[in-house]
């Protein structure tokens, strides 16, 4: 890959911004993720926000819920063609932390890896 993947985090309200800021605080990496909120958008408007966030780089689109306007807009955008893109839902901090250090792989592989990392983070710690 000549250009590292970009991650676009797409969410309701301010969740994406908060997740991106948390990744920046924890890792110091500030150029890997772009937040997009669906606030005030219908689907065409949200697709435009996604397009602007992606630019020309291949990307993984991280969506908050496995359904709804963020996902439908992301999938519609992905079907328009353009830069290589993969979509993963259920975004959490753990998957983004893994992603920012593994961006030299194809988008589909990065999405699979992120989903696995995010899923592993959902655990029930031993009771105190």
């Amino acid at each position, binding site marked *: 890959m000549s250009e590292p993947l970009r991650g676009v985090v797409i969410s*309701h309200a301010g969740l994406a911004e908060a997740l991106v800021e948390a990744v920046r605080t924890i890792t110091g990496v500030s150029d890997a993720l772009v937040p997009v909120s669906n606030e*005030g958008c*219908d689907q065409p*408007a949200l697709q435009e926000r996604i397009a602007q966030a992606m630019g020309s780089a291949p990307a993984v689109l991280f969506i908050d819920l496995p*359904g709804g306007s963020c996902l*439908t807009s992301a999938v519609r955008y992905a079907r328009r063609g353009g830069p290589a893109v993969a979509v993963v839902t259920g975004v959490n901090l753990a998957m983004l932390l893994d992603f920012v250090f593994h961006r030299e792989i194809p988008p589909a592989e990065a999405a699979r890896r992120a989903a696995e990392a995010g899923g592993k983070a959902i655990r029930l710690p031993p009771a105190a």
Partner: protein
Amino acid sequence: MTIALVRLDDRLIHGQVVVGWGQPLNARFIVLVDDEVRASPWEQDLYRMGVPTQIEVIFASIAEATRRLAEWQAADEVGIVLTGTVEALAALAAGSGLTRVNVGGVHHRPGRTERLRYVYLTDQEAEQLRGIARRGIEVTAQDVPTARAIPLTEFVS
């Protein structure tokens, strides 16, 4: 039990509908009225992803929905009818015994002006909503159940 909510929302099936309204209403089916989605299996799959398995999703064209509205109103379980355009909402209102409709989200596009934070309308769309109200149907705007239902006269002069 019947259709508990007839909603205009250009995001169609999304969190406010499924969780915000669907849970308190205990909805067991959602009718998505949209000609394009009705004709597109992959879009139907996409919209189904956002709905828990215990809620049935019915995809209908505007024509199908106007024909079947009475059937859904007589259903044993609670349902939500959802469409994304004022035009489709007006078609539903024209041929049914609806008593109220909900304006849940119509977002900004060129030609529309802001009426509420989540409602933007062209003058023609505003007139179509007035036409629905003239049929004796209560038209209110309310994005989530915990918000106040705002009468049409407060957001369309």
